């Protein structure tokens, strides 16, 4: 996933053609970020649909759903690490503080839903999980906008 970026950086370091390489770097990352965000949105929507099915059946959140949530959390962490590396290696995020703010808050949403799942053993914990997944999907779309500077 990192390879085109690293390749650009190396050629840039070699002092070949710096300016065209920079513009290429931007577009390359955009595709990968779209893929990452798309995967995370798809995962959170899948978890949300699962929670919706359980709500309709009058069932609370179960551990397997929390494991699914943990996978999404891990995905956000990987996203943060990759974004951190890309920013450190020279990618410009126009609204950097807002961008990181969204990622940090996105990291908190599912654990909060997990707390509700533990204390509320009715269908309403599933409702909370639906809302958490919807929030997460919207936040990921905002992250995508902020990365490309729209």
């Amino acid at each position, binding site marked *: 996933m990192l390879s085109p970026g690293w390749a650009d950086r190396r050629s840039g370091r070699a002092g070949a053609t710096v300016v065209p390489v920079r513009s290429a770097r931007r577009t390359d990352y955009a595709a990968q970020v779209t893929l990452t965000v798309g995967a995370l949105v798809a995962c959170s929507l899948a978890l949300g649909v699962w929670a919706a099915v359980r709500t309709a059946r009058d069932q609370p959140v179960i551990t397997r759903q929390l494991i699914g949530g943990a996978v999404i959390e891990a995905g956000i962490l990987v996203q943060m690490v990759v974004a951190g590396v890309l920013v450190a290696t020279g990618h410009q995020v126009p609204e950097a*503080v*807002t961008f990181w*703010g*969204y990622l*940090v*808050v996105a990291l*908190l*949403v599912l654990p*909060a*839903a997990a707390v*509700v799942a533990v*204390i*509320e*053993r*009715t269908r*309403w*914990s599933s*409702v*909370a999980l639906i*809302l*958490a997944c919807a*929030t997460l999907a*919207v936040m990921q779309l905002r992250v995508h906008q902020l990365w490309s500077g729209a």
Partner: protein
Amino acid sequence: MGSDTAERDVTENEQVGDGQVEDTRRPAYGPGRVLIFVYGVFAVSATARASVQLIRNAAEAPLAYSLSAVSAVVYAVATVALAHNGRRMRRVAWVAVTFELVGVITVGILSSTHPELFQHDSVWSRFGAGYGYVPAVLPVLGLFWMWRSSPARIAQT
């Protein structure tokens, strides 16, 4: 749903008489917890938004940015008060949620009549359109829940 069970259990408790009163209510109180969850999400995201705005440039739009900070505090207070649900904390929750409703209506109207005051968005601008109008719906749901979960109302019925 939560208060329905509470109502039923109040009568059950009365039947126990003056001996040991067993509280048979479930610890869960259903939709109220979802409401607290949504308030919590708004408390965190409004705090994050206000922090970002104040860190970047507080002087850029003092009115809109201080409004963001105020709404963040209101959401945080409402979250804690709704979750605590004690006698005094319920009063705090009434005040916070009412303030929130007044705030979202006032700022919503002002941002459409005097857009020059609100060139920078806050949570409550345009009735919370930036957040899917959830900020406008949330205080109504909050007040409804406060009324529904009121111990005085449950005891009367």
